[in-house]
């Protein structure tokens, strides 16, 4: 089922959680709402679910206007941040809750409920734990119960609030993949909230980046990463190094350091660079003159992360280089190098 959000806004007392915003989500799409805390992403999700009422605007599921439909009649699946499992009920009863809660005219027979719950528990690989209480499960298992519970009522819309926020990195990765499979198999429309850009980029068909109650950009992960709409989106999507200086004849200067910019480009006082876009060399060239000192080296993971300092920096920079380059250059703490930017990004100054 498609979801249309039209001109929705929300205030809490004097603070505006959401400025009027609109969003179209296609049937079967998986959309991530990404933003820092206080950006309004959770409020938007809760408005779609019917847990909050917007001050203005409307919500449609397909052709149905659900703006004034009570949450219990909206038929959405909602997975809560801390799962909100009913702790006095067994895993089985938690999953069966939504089925048993139906008015008697629509209720399935006990045997049907039993079958459906067991089928779902099989799907989430928790059949053996059906009789356990939530407190006896690990975080990842609880998360899967929460998902199964939300899916039991066969919602056409699945909403997830920070679904993997409380889990450790390894479980998280596994669950993410699993959710993606589930999504493809059941073909519901999913919206999830996250503050983790990696999670948003990996899971979503499209990502909605939010800040201060506004939508900054809506795009596919690839477009978002390659062509961020503004400085906020760029810096929120990954680590950022900043070079600020004075623009003179196509070059940006700061003390004795400089970067050669496009002659055709607009004059700017600031460029931003991703860590993997920095090339570490032993000599400057025509593209830049950026002398740096190595402050720390951490050869963990697929790249080597190097912290760089210099007088001309406001805050230390981070470079990530390949192990191959690392072996060639052998940077050590205190070592002097030059940085050549492979790419840089410049944005119109922000009003905020």
């Amino acid at each position, binding site marked *: 089922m498609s979801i249309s959000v039209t001109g929705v806004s929300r205030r809490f007392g004097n603070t505006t959680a959401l400025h009027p915003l609109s969003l179209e989500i296609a049937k079967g799409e998986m959309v991530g709402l990404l933003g820092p805390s206080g950006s309004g992403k959770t409020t938007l999700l809760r408005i779609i*679910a*019917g*847990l909050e009422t917007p001050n203005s605007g409307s919500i449609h599921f397909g052709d149905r206007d659900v703006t004034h439909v009570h*949450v*219990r*009649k*909206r*038929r*959405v*699946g*909602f997975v*809560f*941040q*801390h799962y*909100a*499992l*009913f*702790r*006095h*009920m067994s895993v089985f009863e938690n999953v069966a*809750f*939504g089925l*048993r*809660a*139906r*008015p008697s005219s629509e209720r399935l027979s006990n045997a049907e409920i039993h079958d459906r719950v067991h089928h779902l528990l099989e799907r989430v690989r928790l059949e053996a734990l059906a009789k356990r*209480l939530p*407190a*006896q499960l690990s975080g990842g298992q609880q998360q899967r119960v929460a998902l199964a*519970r*939300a899916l039991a*009522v066969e919602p056409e819309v699945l909403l997830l609030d920070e679904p993997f926020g409380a889990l450790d990195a390894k479980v998280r990765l596994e669950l993410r993949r699993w959710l993606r499979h589930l999504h493809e198999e059941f073909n519901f429309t999913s919206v999830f909230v996250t503050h983790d850009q990696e999670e948003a980029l990996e899971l979503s068909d499209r990502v909605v980046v939010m800040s201060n109650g506004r939508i900054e950009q809506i795009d596919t992960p690839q477009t978002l990463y390659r062509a961020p709409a503004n400085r906020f989106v760029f810096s929120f999507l990954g680590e950022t190094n900043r070079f600020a200086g004075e623009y003179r004849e196509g070059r940006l200067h700061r003390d004795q350091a400089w970067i050669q910019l496009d002659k055709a480009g607009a004059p700017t006082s600031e460029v931003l660079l991703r860590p993997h876009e920095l090339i570490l060399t032993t000599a400057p060239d025509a593209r830049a003159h950026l002398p740096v000192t190595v402050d720390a080296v951490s050869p963990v993971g697929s790249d080597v992360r190097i912290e760089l300092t210099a007088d001309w920096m406001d805050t230390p920079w981070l470079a990530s280089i390949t192990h191959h380059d690392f072996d060639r250059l052998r940077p050590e703490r205190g070592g002097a190098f030059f940085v050549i930017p492979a790419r840089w990004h410049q944005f119109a100054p922000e009003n905020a």
Partner: protein
Amino acid sequence: MSTRSARVLPGFSLSLGVTLLFVSLILLLPMTSLIGQLSTLSWSQYWAAITDPRLIASYKVTLLAALAASLFNALFGLLMAWVLARYTFPGKRILDALMDLPFALPTAVAGITLATLYSRNGAVGSLLDPLGIEVAYTWLGIALAMAFTSVPFVVRTVQPVLEDLPAQADEAALTLGASNLYAFRRVILPHIWPAVVTGTGLSFARSLGEFGAVIFIAGNMPYRTEVVSLMMATRLEEYDYAGAAAIASLVMLVSLLLLLAINLWQGRFYRRLHGGRH
């Protein structure tokens, strides 16, 4: 003692000393006198003292009234706890403060007030009389007085538990399509159940022992409206100390067992929910 060196904070010996002295003098010493008094009785005398027919009638009256009072308080307390924990409305603070009135008001004051209001020509009693409802000098009056003095137990044990219940539990039930009644029965009630039982149990224990509020409205008619506390007081007035002690031993045993049962049950319940395996 090897553990003593591990005690970081000062004052162990002092606080242990003060506490033991106090507990011995104020609590334990008087209890030894009860045992002393009981030892003057033979088993058959003891049995006769606690199975006197008039006393047995008072057991029945006390149990029946205390049961009715605590059941009323379970429902009334649940309603008040819910309203105070879940809603905001003008005058809520006054309503909240009023819940403690029965503990702040001396029981004798409650007793004469209820007796006056509910007597046949009292403000409330005169309204109930034409309906054929007699309160004063019946077990109903005893139950009323017991209910009045033990109002705060259920309210004050359930209210904080309700306030602690995360909003997400409500929301989860609602997104799954549950009606108010269904969600209350399946999600909220199980959560507050231990508090309801504890509060009702405490209310029951208190009602069993209630004296000041009850004796005025009860009328104290032998075999009909005498409560156990009154029977003890009567024995004492007759200088039948051994008889009073026999009843007291039974009353204490019942209260302690009740207290123990509440604590054990509560402990087991919480352990189960907080991850203990069984």
